[in-house]
């Protein structure tokens, strides 16, 4: 995988995520807006080697942590868990299918947000020295984040199409070996 391409696309996704929040966000009690970084993490985990996928997930999680009002590390570990799940499940799907990417985003997103909510909620435990976040309610977060994941999975359909279309740019291993990515099941 070409890391400069990944970093540029990751930053572009971050800009899109923050910039289009006003347009794509659903106003309401929860204020749900989709994640652009999660589909990217899933796509990378579907396409590249285990090590690269883990580093990429860590980097994307770091971007989320640095731009959100969250303790550093929770999203990193959440995205890492999502990448692990995607990596384990990727043998079941075609990597160049946007529908497969959307389904994986849903599955991996659930895991990622479970980890994030668990870590942030654990901070409030009395036996840990960290301070709990103000106005943090796990149940409320679960509901809101479920809809975020659902929305992100819906967004992953067009976004996945773009990622697959940009496939030659990424320089994934299967490309370098000459294998055609179309309908290639990665094992």
């Amino acid at each position: 995988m070409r890391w400069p391409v990944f970093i540029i696309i990751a930053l572009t996704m971050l800009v899109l995520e923050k910039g289009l929040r006003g347009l794509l966000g659903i106003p309401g009690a929860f204020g749900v807006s989709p994640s652009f970084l999660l589909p990217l993490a899933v796509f990378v985990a579907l396409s590249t080697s285990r090590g690269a996928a883990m580093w990429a997930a860590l980097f994307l999680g770091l971007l989320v942590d640095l731009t959100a009002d969250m303790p550093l590390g929770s999203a990193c570990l959440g995205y890492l868990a999502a990448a692990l799940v995607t990596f384990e499940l990727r043998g079941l799907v075609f990597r160049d299918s946007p529908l497969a990417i959307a389904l994986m985003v849903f599955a991996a997103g659930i895991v990622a947000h479970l980890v994030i909510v668990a870590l942030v909620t654990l901070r409030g435990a009395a036996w840990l020295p960290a301070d709990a976040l103000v106005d943090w309610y796990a149940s409320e977060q679960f509901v809101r984040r479920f809809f975020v994941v659902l929305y992100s999975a819906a967004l992953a359909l067009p976004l996945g199409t773009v990622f697959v279309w940009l496939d030659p740019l990424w320089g994934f291993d299967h490309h370098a070996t000459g294998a055609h990515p179309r309908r290639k099941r990665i094992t």
Partner: protein
Amino acid sequence: MRLLSFHPRRIFVLLVVLLLINSLCVPLSVSKWYSKWPASLLETLTVPFTRRLNGASNRIRDGFSRDRTDAVEAIADSQRLHRIVLKLRQELVEAHQEIERLSGVRQRFALTEMKILAAHVVSVGTDQLRRTLTIDRGALRGVRQGHVVGVGLDLVGRVASTGPSTATVQLIMDRATDLTAYVVSPIDDVSQRLVATQLRYDANRGVFVGNVSQSRDGDNVRVGDYALPADPRWPDEARQLIVGYVVAIEKHEDNPSLLRRIIVKPQSDPAKLTKVFVFMPVTADLLGEATNR
């Protein structure tokens, strides 16, 4: 020495452990302090693009919501105006009917020196011994005790008492009513019949009952004739209003050979009245009031 070598996997594991410790054990203020620099760097890189994109998306969203809001408001306004137009049409029709009715009353009275005051019924009394209704016009509008109250051509009653802005009307549909009346033929009847009688209100049947002489007036009263008040205790303006219509002529059970009983049914039901008219003869003070206006 091998432990200290920078193997990517070891670095990765170390990083994950540090992140886990940071996310669970480090206070938020400390975490924010050392993530401040990378966060500001990231912000520097992304904010120029994010701001533009955000502005564009807000403009799109605002424009869309404004258009939608305008359209929704326009539809709501249109529906509201349509309802108002319908209501105004209904009121216009009712007003025309009232004008026709009042014109008829005026012609019938042949009194130009008469002020007719429209009043809404505020409440209908529940006392069965003394049936009254309250109207929303009182002494401040010139209503006085004894003024005749009607609806259209029908006699409703007489003002019994007045307050500043309300008045109580004693209904003719009352057990105490004992009214001298003329039973006259309708206008389109050329026979020009007229019979005097004394009407009493039968609350059980909701009709006025009067007696007429079988030998003298038996043929002069027919179903469909109407009864006009002719009682000297009532003001003159009441005499052209209608008490009710003859709906039946019955044999008198006590003296069937000499008397007939006529049943006069009032046209208006006090319980259903919403608007009435107070007939106010123009007196010197009313004329003065009108001149001042």
